[in-house]
């Protein structure tokens, strides 16, 4: 009779050697943790870009706290950017030829417009990487002022579409802090209605919340209850922030979650119109265009295709643009998103591209009968 074969046999491989090697693996991992901690907190390496790389996976809250705790931040620091109720919108000039809403791409368009036609007066309202819900909310805040503007550029970026269901950029992107919060809108009968507002609406309120755990926890509860992409594991600080290996794990999980979510919202054939975020963007855009016209302000839509997103943004809203007969500037028409030469290393468009967008914008303004101050000298 054949002897039964043991299914998991010990072999001549040395168990001692296995344990020895495993012990060394653990030892080296511990040494790595200690070395990173020491080198990047106690030496000049703490101020290098490599330090940023090693801390990308820290929770979003820990990055916000680190930023907010820095003394003497310049006024153009990201800490102060994009807030809806810090008084900045109200302090803008009341009269301008063009009000530009949106994100950094829109701001760059404004700069290019100034270079091409310095006499064109502008008001610029936006936040870094701001999605459409921020833009719409910023417009609502702006409406409360007694300002006058002949034209309004509505900036809309392809990367911002997926963020339309969030209340902070950190709900999807944990690498770099963008502190400002914005409202959450939800669809009701095809219209976007305000569903929740942030409890923190300025850099001062953020600092105050960090000084009072209860206030901050209440803010997290607002996000938990309304922000579709908020996950406490990625957002709120915890003990894992102290370990470089845990930070790597968190960053890996975060980017994979983001990729999966992005792929779900934007499939191989463009944005999926049965997903909430694209639907919200469409509704918010349509509402903003209608409201601008109701105020007798001429809207110009600025469609920004971020690198590698093709013409999906235009395809998402082209029917709205046609139905509303709204002039638009599509970056894809001048600088293709699949051409790396269109972009700077920081992923913004080159100055040459910005100039092309500005020329097209000016052509629309001129064709529409520009106000006296904005006409060509």
């Amino acid at each position: 009779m054949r002897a039964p074969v043991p299914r998991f046999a010990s072999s001549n491989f040395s168990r001692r050697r296995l344990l020895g090697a495993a012990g060394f693996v653990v030892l080296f991992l511990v040494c790595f943790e200690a070395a990173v901690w020491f080198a990047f907190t106690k030496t000049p390496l703490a101020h290098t870009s490599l330090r940023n790389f090693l801390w990308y996976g820290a929770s979003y809250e820990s990055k916000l706290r680190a930023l907010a705790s820095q003394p003497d931040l310049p006024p153009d620091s990201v800490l102060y950017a994009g807030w809806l109720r810090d008084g900045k919108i109200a302090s803008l000039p009341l009269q301008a030829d063009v009000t530009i809403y949106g994100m950094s791409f829109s701001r760059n368009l404004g700069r290019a417009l100034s270079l091409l036609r310095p006499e064109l007066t502008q008001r610029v309202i936006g936040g870094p990487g701001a999605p459409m819900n921020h833009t719409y909310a910023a417009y609502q805040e702006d409406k409360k002022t007694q300002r006058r503007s002949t034209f309004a550029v509505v900036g809309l970026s392809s990367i911002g579409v997926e963020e339309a269901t969030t209340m902070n950029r950190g709900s999807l992107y944990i690498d770099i802090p963008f502190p400002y919060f914005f409202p959450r809108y939800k669809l009701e009968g095809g219209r976007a209605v305000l569903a929740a507002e942030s409890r923190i609406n300025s850099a001062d309120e953020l600092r105050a919340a960090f000084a009072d755990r209860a206030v901050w926890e209440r803010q997290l509860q607002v996000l938990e209850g309304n922000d579709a992409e908020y996950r406490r594991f990625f957002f709120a600080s915890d003990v894992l922030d102290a370990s470089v290996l845990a930070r790597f794990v968190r960053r890996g999980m975060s980017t994979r979650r983001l990729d999966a979510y992005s792929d779900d919202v934007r499939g191989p054939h463009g944005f999926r119109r049965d997903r909430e975020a694209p639907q919200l963007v469409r509704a918010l855009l349509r509402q903003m265009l209608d409201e601008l016209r109701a105020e007798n302000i001429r809207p110009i839509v600025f469609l920004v295709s971020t690198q590698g997103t093709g013409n999906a943004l235009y395809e998402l809203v082209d029917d709205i643009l046609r139905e509303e007969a709204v002039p638009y500037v599509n970056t894809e028409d001048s600088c293709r998103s699949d051409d790396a030469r269109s972009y700077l290393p920081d992923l913004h468009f080159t100055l040459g591209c910005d100039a092309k967008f500005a020329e097209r914008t000016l052509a629309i303004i001129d064709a529409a009968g520009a106000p006296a101050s904005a006409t060509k000298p």
Partner: protein
Amino acid sequence: MLFNSFEFLVFLAITYALYLVLPHRKQNWMLLVASYVFYGWWDWRFLGIIAFTTILDYVVSLRIVASTAEREKRAWLGLSVGINLGLLGVFKYFNFFVESFVELANHAGLHVDWVPLHIILPVGISFYTFQSISYSIDVYRGQIAPPRRFLDYALFVAFFPQMVAGPIQRATYFLPQVVEPRQVDLDQVCRGAFLILYGLFKKAVIADGLAGAVGSVFNAAGAHSGLDVFVATYLFVLQIYCDFSGYTDIARGVAKLMGFNLSKNFMTPFYSASPAEYWTRWHISLSSWVKDYVYFPLALHYLRKGDGKLDEYKPHLISMLLMGLWHGAAWTYILWGLYHGLMLIAWDLFKWPRSLKRASRLLVKPLRIAFYFQITAISLLLFRANSVHQIGDLLLALVGRGGTRGFTIPTPPTATLLAIPLLLGFDYLSYHHSSDLFYRKWPDAARGVLVAALFILLLMGWSNAPAEFIYFQF
């Protein structure tokens, strides 16, 4: 279900736990079910094709053995090979051939209209079809007998670690491992775990990390500078090597955990000094398949014909064209195959001077390796290009014509840049020792450092955008 996904981790954990507690026969049943779940994860409709192929080839193999007349055996073999290639032809090449025909007809002034059919390409069909064909041929040649149980054969075809992207297993090597009870020991588990770690490192950290930089040239519109094309091609060499060999390492590692030994698919291919050597180091399972079932029979045929030097080289060309076509229905792959076929012939025609051969190996071989590496890199440019037109543009840019100036390729992620030297070092030592097991002779501390470094870099690179394995499309 990708090897570098959370779903696969859960799938493997459940499968392995069951595997360890089941007796041999039930292990095979469970592995077959798991393999079909794994395959059906992409699209359950694919299961019908693999089940059909499996039943067909098993029945045919029984008929071959039962047949007494050579003619009858040959007819059964013809049926198996014909149907397998027919399936491959329909799913993989139908549109390509018809489109090419229509184009040709239109060039000739005949106006032919054609709407391409929407045929989904089943994942891994080229791999398991070739594996199945080799089984039928081996049974016909009397090199192996059909297994007594259909279950064993079905598992041989569908074994999940290697089903979708190889290595293509030979029945003579792998079927006995399925049929006989397997033994899992600590040695294999450690080796398997290391292969999985190293495979994930290659795939997630290096291949996925380089995808963006490579795509910035090959997937982008507009002209590129020669420097862009040069760097992107080199990076693609690394990307595809890490992608494909990473998959193979994980497949071999997972199989080893269960006591199976899959054949090797790569052996430091970029240390090849000639085309003949390259094809013993790169995608070994396919090149040896083509060598055994296409090249040798053809070479024998032409030898018997004995019509001169030209006939001597026909098997080279036909084999390599077949290899190219195996990869996909595109002229770029056919060009790639033709290029390699011509290289084989060129190397054969060019005899190295005897004095050079004898000269210091240290001095001459590195030069030959470096030279042949450039040949390989160009072949991979052909392989990666999206069209013949793009090949022309890229080659022109390489020689400084028609392209632009400057350098636009984005810097790969930090983890990838840190990982590449480790990969090159590991490959060099594998080449130097003629074995990728060299590290096992190292002291515990050194092995500990190696594993810890791979682990740290894997965690670091886990944030690279995950991409499907390149060879899944074949």
